[in-house]
């Protein structure tokens, strides 16, 4: 493998943004027929490096060589033409076009300028079936399918171009186990065809499962390149974080013996349900309790969260708040009743991209207080500084636009937004998705320490370990049903897996 010359070589790459040094002296070598993992914490520069490689950003300094020839790409289109295809972290497709149109957009099969629709649909269907084992109606608009399927379609779109290098930027972050396996089959097939694949991920297991070689970045700097089989997990984590870290192992101790202290009932859902989203379920959340929701993607986890927050209206059942405080009809009601909801869709339902960190933080609190009780500018700045320090947000500049931040830092700003409203119940939907280990542990710790202070949580995550670590009680969901509630001593990966699988 490694005796071949690299097909793509990036050397001494530097990239600066106003106020941020995103990359300094970074290198990367991709070999044909290899899966190369790019690892690093949030803000380590993984996304920036990829955007430099694909021409989204121009490079300040350094060279990129493709097959030994220096190249300069000015746009993703040029990169694609040169043979570098990318599937980005957030799906970049048009949800109101059909699946086939999405795959062939810009390069539709034509004759005399006329698009051959039948031909296009047939080829799209074949492509999905043969290479991704995905059997769907390609004439349906994309929004009819789940994010996971959309992700596979994005990959299909990149595959369709004859490429030398395929970049997968966290392709698995919204896929469930089966879909990941399906994806990896495709990756292995492409690898055997001689493609160089750059795979960005936060999941260590997946990295070891699929990768041959790994490059690690830390704080925009090159932290080493290794063969995956020569690198132990501990070494990898140490390289990524830059320090010896066992904080993940300390955590389980924290959640012990807490159930006794859990107080009166805060929220009670009785037979709450919504057609096509979630079958009627009962759920009770007590003060200081962390309720985990476990289940596969699309099993109804998010749907429960949305009902609890009033973002969707239930058709059946009743949601009552403890202490006779009535019920909830809208997100606004929920916020007034001290419920917060951090959505899994950070980009579409979370951040306000054009606004600053400070403005994003105070938004919910200001909305709660109303139009005229304006938070004074000075107080806003104090709040922003305080939470930037508390949550370790980078860059520590409250006037930076939130869209310039890495995903993990955006997530922290959103957490700050909700913590500011001092909720009694905080619903976290995939709060650690696309976030590195360090930040993940910080968020888990935060959940535990706040629950000790009496804040209740609904914690949703695709990672079982994580749900187990923080939860006092876990509701397991399967196919839009709440199938089981497991608490305390019965909680183990095994029992939950069994419940999810339905065996």
């Amino acid at each position, binding site marked *: 493998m490694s005796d071949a010359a690299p097909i793509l070589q990036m050397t*001494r790459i530097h990239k600066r943004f106003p106020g941020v040094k995103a990359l300094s002296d970074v290198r990367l070598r991709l070999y044909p027929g290899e899966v190369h993992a790019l690892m690093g914490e949030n803000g380590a520069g993984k996304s920036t490096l990829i955007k430099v490689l694909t021409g989204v950003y121009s490079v300040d300094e350094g*060279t990129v060589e493709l097959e030994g020839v*220096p190249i*300069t790409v000015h746009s993703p289109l040029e990169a694609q033409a040169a043979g570098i295809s990318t599937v980005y972290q957030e799906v970049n497709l048009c949800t109101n076009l059909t699946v086939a149109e999405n795959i062939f957009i810009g390069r539709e099969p034509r004759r005399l300028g006329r698009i051959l629709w039948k031909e296009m649909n047939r080829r799209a269907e074949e492509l999905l079936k043969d290479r991704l084992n995905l059997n769907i109606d390609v004439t349906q608009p994309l929004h009819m399918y789940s994010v996971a399927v959309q992700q596979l379609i994005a990959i299909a779109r990149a595959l369709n171009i004859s490429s030398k290098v395929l970049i997968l930027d966290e392709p698995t972050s919204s896929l469930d186990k089966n879909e990941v396996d399906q994806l990896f089959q495709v990756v292995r097939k492409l690898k055997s065809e001689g493609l160089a694949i750059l795979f960005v991920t936060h999941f260590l297991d997946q990295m070891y499962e699929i990768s041959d070689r790994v490059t690690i970045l830390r704080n925009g700097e090159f932290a080493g390149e290794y063969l995956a089989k020569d690198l132990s997990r501990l070494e990898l984590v140490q390289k990524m974080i830059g320090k010896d870290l066992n904080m993940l192992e300390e955590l389980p101790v924290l959640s012990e013996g807490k159930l006794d202290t859990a107080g009166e009932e805060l929220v009670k859902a009785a037979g709450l349900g919504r057609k096509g989203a979630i079958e009627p379920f009962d759920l009770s959340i007590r003060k200081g309790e962390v309720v985990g929701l476990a289940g596969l993607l699309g099993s109804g986890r998010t749907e429960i969260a949305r009902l609890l*927050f009033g*973002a969707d209206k239930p058709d059946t059942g009743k949601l009552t708040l403890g202490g006779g405080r009535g019920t909830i009809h809208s*997100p*606004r009601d*929920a*916020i*007034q009743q001290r419920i917060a*909801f951090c*959505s899994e869709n950070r980009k*579409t*339902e*979370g*951040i*306000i*991209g*054009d*606004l600053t960190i400070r*403005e994003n933080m*105070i*938004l*919910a609190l*200001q*909305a*709660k207080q*109303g*139009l*005229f009780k*304006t*938070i004074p500018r000075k107080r806003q700045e104090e709040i922003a500084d305080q939470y930037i320090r508390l949550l370790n947000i980078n860059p520590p500049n409250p006037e930076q636009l939130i869209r310039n931040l890495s995903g993990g830092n955006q997530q922290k700003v959103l957490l700050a*937004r909700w913590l500011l409203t001092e909720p009694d119940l905080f619903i976290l939907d995939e709060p650690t998705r696309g976030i590195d280990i360090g930040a993940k542990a910080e968020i888990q710790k935060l959940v535990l320490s706040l629950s000790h202070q009496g804040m209740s949580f609904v914690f949703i995550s695709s990672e079982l370990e994580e749900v187990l670590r923080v939860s006092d009680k876990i509701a397991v969901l399967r196919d839009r049903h709440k199938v089981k509630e497991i608490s305390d001593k019965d909680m183990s990966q095994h029992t939950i897996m069994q419940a999810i699988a339905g065996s």
Partner: protein
Amino acid sequence: MKSIYKHHLFWPLCVLAALLLFNLFYSPDFFSITFRDGHLYGSLIDILNFGSPLILVAIGMTLVVATSGIDLSVGSIVAISGAVACLSISKASDQNMLSLILLSVLMAIVLSLLLGVWNGLLVSAAGIQPIIATLILMVAGRGIAQLITGGQIITVTSDKYAYIGSGSLAALPFSIFVVAAVLIAVTLVTRKTALGLFIESVGCNPAASLMSGIRAKWVLISVYMFCGLCAGIAGLLLSSNVSSADGNNAGLWYELDAILAVVIGGTSLNGGRFYLLGTVVGALIIQTMTTTIYMIGVPPEITLVVKAFVVLAVCLVQSSAFRAAIASRWKTRHYPGEKEITRHVS
């Protein structure tokens, strides 16, 4: 220095300065202001005075655009407002009665507000796309204005009404004070309360705003209402300036000039951040351009073409992508290979 260059008002002000300098070149007494009979006279005063209605309409439009909307009906509201006020005054036996003038003005303003609420309801409650929702009133409103005026031009003979659009206060045209009052009021309301933040938030990401507990519907209704109000006041200024109401032509194509002023001022049509002062400068650029074209005697048949070219130039100067393309043309070409040689020495 860099912060000056980066400021959102930098390029609009440059364009405005360039236009004014161009005028100075053509007529050396362009900047001269004379004092006669207790009034100030001069081209600059004229630009401010005649530009007032456009500035008002554009200020209202700014907030609508900030919510990623658009209001095409402002021109029609201008016509309706003027028509209602003039009709009410012209029916009276004594057209100079103060209570009559106040009542007529109040009627016009309330009606403009209601028309704004109508737009706001269509956009927020009915969920119609703003361009279509306001197109309805743009077309229908012109008809309503013609119905009110009976297809005629209504003239009024009222010194008190004429004062609004052509009177003077402290030697300056009264309309300037109207504009200043509205500008100060809207700046205070949007920047001293959280309304500005909510408008920007709704414009940038409506779904996230809703999840944060912002009443997006009320924000939308209020900006369309305010836009209607601004157009209504502009209609009063315009009709009072000429002491007549013309349902067919008053405020014709105002929506387009207003949108242009907003965009020149740096507010993106995608919504989000808005710049009220930028809009004012944008409107002044458009008004100066109109004045200039008349002054240097461009034949009427090519006036629009000249205007189009100036607008194109303004937009190109404002586009950072265009500036970057020009700048990279000027720089020497970059050869990555040459750098490589020095690197491998070590």
